C-alpha cells in the first residue's frame, strides 16, 4: 500500500502543579483588557507537521515518538498528539 500523508498537531503544556509564570501573567493582564471571569490560564506550545505513513496508527506512533523524545520534557511537560485525516497519497 502506498504511504499516505497525515497532518499531525502536537500540543505541549506544563504538567499540572508546575508553576506557569507566563500563564499567570496573561491571566493577571486580562482585567486591564476588560475581560472578566477567565481563570486557569496555562501557556503551552503547538507543533504541526506531516508524516508519511502506511496508516493512521503508524503515523500516530511516530508522531508520539517525536513528541515524547523531543518536543516535550516529561520532567515538567506533557504532550497530546492529534493525527488528522490523510487524504493525499504520496
Amino acid at each position, binding site marked *: 500500500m502506498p504511504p499516505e500523508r497525515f497532518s499531525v498537531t502536537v500540543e505541549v503544556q506544563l504538567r499540572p502543579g*508546575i*508553576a506557569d*509564570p*507566563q500563564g499567570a*501573567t496573561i491571566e493577571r493582564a486580562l482585567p486591564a483588557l476588560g475581560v472578566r471571569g477567565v481563570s486557569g490560564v496555562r501557556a503551552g506550545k503547538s507543533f504541526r507537521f506531516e508524516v508519511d505513513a502506511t496508516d493512521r496508527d503508524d503515523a500516530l506512533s511516530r508522531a508520539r515518538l517525536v513528541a515524547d523524545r*523531543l*518536543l516535550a*520534557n516529561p*520532567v*515538567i511537560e506533557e504532550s497530546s498528539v492529534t493525527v488528522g485525516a490523510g487524504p493525499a497519497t504520496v
Partner: protein
Amino acid sequence: MARVGVVVFPGSNCEHDAVAALSRLGARAELIWHGATSVSEYDALVLPGGFAHGDYVRPGAIARFSPVMEPVRRFAADGGPVLGICNGFQVLCEAGLLPGALQKNRGLRFLCTTVTVRIDSEASVLTRGVPAGTELRIPINHFEGNFTCDDRTASVLRAEGRVVLRYVDNPNGSVDDIAGICNKGGNVVGLMPHPERASDPLLGSGDGNVLLAALLASLETSARAGVGTG
C-alpha cells in the same frame, strides 16, 4: 597537564571564556566540535554556556541529540568528570545525565547579575576540598535557570549530598535554592552560575577559580590514584 575538552555546539558562546579560565589555571584546554564522535583523549569535559542549537524547542532539547553526546555519555558512565555550565547544565538535564529540568525563571526575567552561592557538598569533582559553607560571588546569566524536580528527587539529592551549590538569595525560584547539582558518582556536575566568568578580579570576581581549580585538582588526584579515564 590535565587535558580538558570544551564542547562547542552551534550557538555556544562561553567556550572561549572556559578555555581561557582553565588555561590560566594550568590546564590544556581545547575546543571540541559537537560533531565529534570520540572524547577519549580528555581527562575532563566542559559543556559551556550559550544557546545550543538556538535553544529551540527548549534549552538543551536538540543538543541532547548532537553526535558528541553519545561519547560524552560513555565518558560520564566511566566516571569521567563532566561539567555543565548554564546551558551546559540544561543540556545535561535534557540528556538525563542529571535529574530535573531548568524552567523559566520565576518572574519571567532574564537575569544577568552576580550572585552569592554557598558550597553545600564536597562530594563533587567541582567542589572536592572546598569546605561546605564557603561563599563565592559568581555571575549568572540566564532565562531558564529555575531548577525544577519532583519532591522525591529533591529529597534524594539532599539525602545523597548531591546539592553542590545553593543560592544565598534565590534569584530564579529554583527548588531548594539549588544552583548546582551532581550525579550519584559526583563526576557529572551542572550549575547555572558561570565560574569561568569569575576568573579574575578584573572581571569583578576571581571566585570562580576556586571551583575550576578544585576540578583540575581532582583530576590530578584521580590520575595519581590510577582511576583517570584518560
